[in-house]
């Protein structure tokens, strides 16, 4: 079964605003979105900014990296790690974060949010 979801693209920031292999937080429609630029892989990801463990608005300040080939971010508070592709918690806890589509165009970062 295939489900289709309508998303709306929002301008978040310029590509240079997000540090290479780091993250930044953008406020879009009142929602805090964490944007990550994995420069070594030339990949962009976007997730919730809130870490579900202690509900802190912090993931954009987390450390990016990989486990095997899976790109991830680790929360700066207690090092809970999340897959940037699926939002699944990789540290053995039952947490899930939302992930969002990212598009890069003319030096701008666009985030796709559910309409």
């Amino acid at each position, binding site marked *: 079964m295939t489900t289709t979801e309508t998303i709306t693209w929002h301008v978040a920031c310029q590509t240079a605003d997000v*540090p290479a*292999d780091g993250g930044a937080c953008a*406020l879009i429609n009142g929602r805090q979105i964490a944007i990550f630029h994995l420069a*070594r892989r030339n990949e962009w990801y976007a997730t919730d900014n809130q870490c579900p463990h202690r509900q802190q608005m912090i993931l954009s300040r987390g450390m990016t990296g*990989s486990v095997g080939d899976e790109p991830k971010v*680790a929360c700066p*508070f207690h*090092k809970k790690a999340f897959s940037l592709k699926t939002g699944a918690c990789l540290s053995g806890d039952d947490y899930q974060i939302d992930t969002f589509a990212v598009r890069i165009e003319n030096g701008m970062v666009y985030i796709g949010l559910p309409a």
Partner: protein
Amino acid sequence: MNTQNNRRIVVLGNGMAGYKFCEKLIAKQLGSAIPFTLTVFGEEPRIAYDRVHLSAYFAGKTADDLALAPESWYTDNNIQLYLSDPVIAIDRDRKEVRSHHGHVVPYDYLIFATGSSAFVPQIPGVDKDGVFVYRTLEDLDLIRTYATKARHGAVLGGGLLGLEAANALLDLGLEAAHVVEFAPRLMPRQIDAAGSAILQRRLEDLGLQIHLNKSTQQLTGDGVINGMQFADGSLLSIDMLVISAGIRPRDELAKRSGLDVHPRGGIVVDNFLQTSDPAIFAIGECALVHSMIYGLVAPAYDMADVVAARLTGTEREFQPFDMSTKLKLIGVDVASFGDAFAEGDDCRTVCYENKAKGVYKRINISADGTTLLGGILVGDAAEYNQLLQVCKNKTILPPDPEDLILGNRGGEDVPGAGVMSLPDEALICSCEAVTKAQLCHEIGENGQTTIDALKKSTKACTGCGGCTPMVKDLIQAVQKQQGVYVRNVLCEHFDYTRQELLDLAKINQLTTYGAVLDTLGKGDGCEVCKPAVASILASLWNENILEKDRAPIQDSNDRYLANLQRGGTYSVVPRIPGGEITPDKLIAIGQVAKQYGLYTKITGGQRIDLFGAHVGDLPAIWEQLIAAGFESGHAYGKALRTVKSCVGTTWCRFGVQDSVSFAIEIENRYKGIRAPHKFKSGVSGCVRECAEAQSKDFGIIATDKGWNLYVGGNGGAKPQHAHLLVSDVDKATCVKLIDRFLMFYIKTADPLMRTATWINKMEGGITYLKAVVVEDSLGIAAELEGEMDALIANYSCEWKAVVESPALRQRFTHFVNAPTLKDPTVQFAPMRDQIQAQDWIR
């Protein structure tokens, strides 16, 4: 024997043997329906302590460190313990004892574990002031106090304890320490003349003055000792004397009670340690068994076991005990084993002597060349455990037995060498009677692969500690056998240890994470290797940690140069070196806190922490703090935190040095230096230690001659006192040694390893560290000092750099698309007259 009527046991003496008896008895009666009632009378005011390592008391160990078990152990095990209360009378007919304080306790079995006292020869003048014995912690306290006003000390007796006591006198700061021995050689019971000559030279190099063949006729002085007069007419002028001329069994109570006592001392017992009264046993140094007094801890423990086994229903005889010993005397190895002095037709002797290096080795081999009878090692006893096992197990010797002490000089590997070649029943730990098979089982089957774990599960290494190196070898050998290769690599992205990575980054001159990962790693990195590499790069080059590609690899706190707190705000700690601050600076901190609504608190490290700062406010806060003359306090970094100080001679009426000035000097010297983990320091102006320097990674305590430097202390979850590295040095030497210590730590520790753990895990421990840092045994001291100088020269306040750089400042925002907006989810709650972070969801 196990009826309700004979379950009352009274133990006389709370030394090592008495304690071990209680421990063994409790272990053996586990699960028994009617437990014994145990009453222990001790003459000393303290609970049982480790007398073998008595000298460690002068090296900084406390009475608590030396205690064999905490006081609660006695109550937990329902042992009635009377301290400072020796038994003074035994009524053997009524079977009860009466103590000094009048306690009358009935017994079914009575255990003498009264130990021994120092033997004091009847030399005229021994009652003068300034004459001591070396036996208990109280003796050591008296010696320490008296030593503060003495300059020349002597020890009567050149045995093991005497030499330790002489070294203690040097450590206590005496100008001269003499050793006076009646026999023509040192340690006459353990080593031969050639070994003694080598030992003597080594000890003289260390500053001891040795006088052999000296018969002391009298101690001179008017009430207070001022010299020793010898039979050969010579005179030695001293102002204190420690007598260490042997031991005398404490058998006086046994004698008064009508038990058989040997005319030359010792309670006579049979092979079951039973005295002439079948209800009374004697163990340890008060007992005369096999017509001798065993003055070592291992046989005493075995005696305790024999009696405990007997009372719980297992009969076994106490066997003649191997008196082999190995010890490190003031850094010089001395060992003797088996028949050390074997001579004659049944024996061939191989000797090796290296006067230049101060090494002497002798092995005695049976005439047919097949078995090892015994031997002596001085200066290098690395082969001791191996030789002892070969000797005890009567292992057939290789064709060239001299290889055992000289090493294999070409050809095949020596068969019979190596710990795995020992038979399963080989006794590795003789104090606790732990065999090789038991240890291998724990290591291999139960995964107990650390000394600490094995101490818990087998008690090996908990007695004299002599078997520790061999147990370590066993751990490695068993793991190797299982195909386990232990290597502490960083993570999946780097197949190197931290130390290897640091060396490689240095050789390749790498300064960015990208370059390190490209050159030495794989993948994208992770939250383990990124901060580790960040720390390595900072420790190598000390460049601003947020520049180049380094900001995103910094750990949470370093990334924003502040401490991340609940709710996502940060705390700010300006540096206040040594805890000294002017009123103007206090006002400046107050103004900043007021303006930004920050909660303020004094920290444990004598500074002021400002909590609740929004990430976007951090640069402005620091701009004001820097304008007021502050620098970053690195409270967020794996770097020097504070150097705590007491007020010292500037105000304190007890102080002997200016501790505040030294603390400020030290803090300014090492500020901003990054290491595998945070490190703290303290400087105390006198021995009262108000700055708690001994709980710091490196701590300095003033003496009236200079400064004592301690290293490896820790507070936190596993508090640990620091080890004394060096005493009475001047400031410049102290700083030089700290340079070396820190740099050696920075270069070799694992990520996030504090100095205490680093030293605990170091092969050779503090002794090795001392050799490297103080004696420069690796020849790297100059290099370490140079590297530290380079780091210090490269220091600049990283907050100043951020405040002055628009590009770096720009990173301090919560919303990249709304830089002036603060995170609206941040909430505070009132707390007394200030704020606290909103509690988070649990």
